[in-house]
């Protein structure tokens, strides 16, 4: 009997060389839910996505996707896992030498034997779903940041994935484009019934659309809950993050060994 959770991370630790990024992480994503992973820059959020997609393998722990440990998958099994998965990259990662049409058609042409007429219909449907019908002849360089992100979203859902991964989908977008992307993510998730993970540090827009939130700091899950629980959380760290305060548990200043006043030789100088 399949587990209620589509993704489970059990005691996962990961390090780049000797730098520990994730420490004993436990995390569960229920089937069909949109879950946000929030945290500051460099907190290990994107690394989590890369562990789930199998781009990295953890030094310790299990990364279970639909009951199978990604870290133990062979090459063929890993590629089969990825065929059931869509990923929206931070800046879209569109193939710059292909048109919008060819970008969206790319996974269909690579993984199916569908005739070109059917691929055309599917591509136009996907583009229509993200509100970009009519842009199929354009090249990525001719698109705005928001449009490129929507084309990338159309490409990510081309094969109707069971799992969607969103890596900072709101970065660098104007408020209107940001609202459009957020709405599309929510609508597509509801329509396709996919399980989805969204890595982001855009608190307010994310809390409007997700079902559950995990907060990650210094490689550890420090808080979790529904958007309502997060808004009401007493944790100073969560409150600082939600309110966007400059100082708090997360310091404004870099923890240097010496302060500027020490460096300048001024009396009474303290450390930052």
């Amino acid at each position, binding site marked *: 009997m399949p587990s209620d959770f589509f993704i489970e991370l059990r005691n996962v630790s990961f390090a780049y060389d000797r730098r520990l990024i994730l420490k004993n992480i436990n995390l569960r994503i229920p089937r069909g839910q949109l879950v946000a992973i929030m945290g500051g820059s460099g907190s290990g959020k994107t690394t989590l996505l890369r562990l789930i997609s199998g781009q990295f393998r953890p030094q310790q722990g299990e990364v279970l996707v639909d009951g199978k440990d990604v870290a133990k998958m062979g090459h063929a099994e890993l590629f089969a896992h*990825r065929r059931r998965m869509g990923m929206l990259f931070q800046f879209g990662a569109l193939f*710059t030498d292909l048109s919008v049409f060819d970008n969206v058609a790319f996974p269909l042409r690579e993984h199916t034997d569908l005739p070109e007429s059917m691929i055309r219909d599917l591509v136009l449907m996907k583009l229509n779903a993200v509100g970009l019908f009519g842009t199929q002849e354009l090249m990525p360089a001719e698109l705005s940041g928001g449009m490129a992100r929507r084309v990338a979203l159309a490409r990510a859902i081309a094969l109707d994935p069971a799992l969607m991964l969103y890596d900072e989908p709101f970065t660098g977008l104007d408020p209107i484009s940001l609202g459009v992307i957020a709405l599309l993510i929510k609508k597509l998730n509801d329509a396709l019934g996919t399980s989805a993970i969204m890595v982001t540090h855009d608190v307010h827009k994310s809390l409007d659309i997700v079902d559950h939130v995990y907060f990650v700091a210094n490689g550890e899950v420090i808080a979790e809950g529904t958007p309502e629980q997060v808004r009401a959380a007493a944790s100073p760290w969560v409150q600082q993050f939600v309110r966007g305060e400059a100082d708090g548990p997360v310091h404004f200043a870099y923890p240097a060994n010496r302060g500027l006043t020490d460096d300048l030789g001024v009396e009474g100088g303290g450390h930052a």
Partner: protein
Amino acid sequence: MLDFLISPLRKLGHTSINAIWRLGYASRFLISILMYSGQSLMRFSLVIREVYFAGVLSLIIIIVSGLFVGMVLGLQGYNTLARFGSSDALGALVALSLLRELGPVLAALLFASRSGSAMTAEIGLMKTTEQLDAMSVMAVNPVARVVAPRFWAGVISMPVLAALFNVMGIFGGYLVGVVMIGLDAGTYWSQMNNAVDLHFDVVNGLIKSLVFGIAVTLIAVFEGYDATPTAAGVSSATTRTVVTSALVILALDFVLTAFMF
């Protein structure tokens, strides 16, 4: 004091280990290209597309350079041969110089500068903008889809470009020797015909250019794939492609010449 002595040694050791590690990595990369070449060659349209970018778009620089090298050979060769009263041998000198050495070497150097650097920059930028990651996450192997077609396009293009360089060089020598200086056209061609051996000169020259094509294209795709994903990383990878290719071409040329001629 001791650190003063140990530090350069440590740096030397680190550089040597790094160079050996990269050589090993490049070898494994070549094996992986060969392993995934079947998929690329079965979708030959991908290779044809890259032949257009690497080969067809290099035609202008190859044709113009070949013509001028041949013309310079014609001028210099005539001046030197005339001193010994053997200016009739100009056709043989131009053809042998081009077929054995200048054609394969100069065409490979031009190919490395024009197409090799472009391949490195393109693959490096694809890495920087996460296009290779996107492909991999879509269960499409970037080595099979991006690297192998470019590798084979380079290997196919290089001998053809070198042959074209030779043809244009011989024509350049003809323009200077026969049209400008007034040597007899029949003598120019017949001397060439007598001096050039199909297997010894032409085929060996083409084998050289094939080896250069493999080396240059491997360096280009490897440097792009291994580039640090930043603007500075892609820039230095592109520079490394041109510099390493030039050194490898000249070193290989010496080795091949020693074995062939």
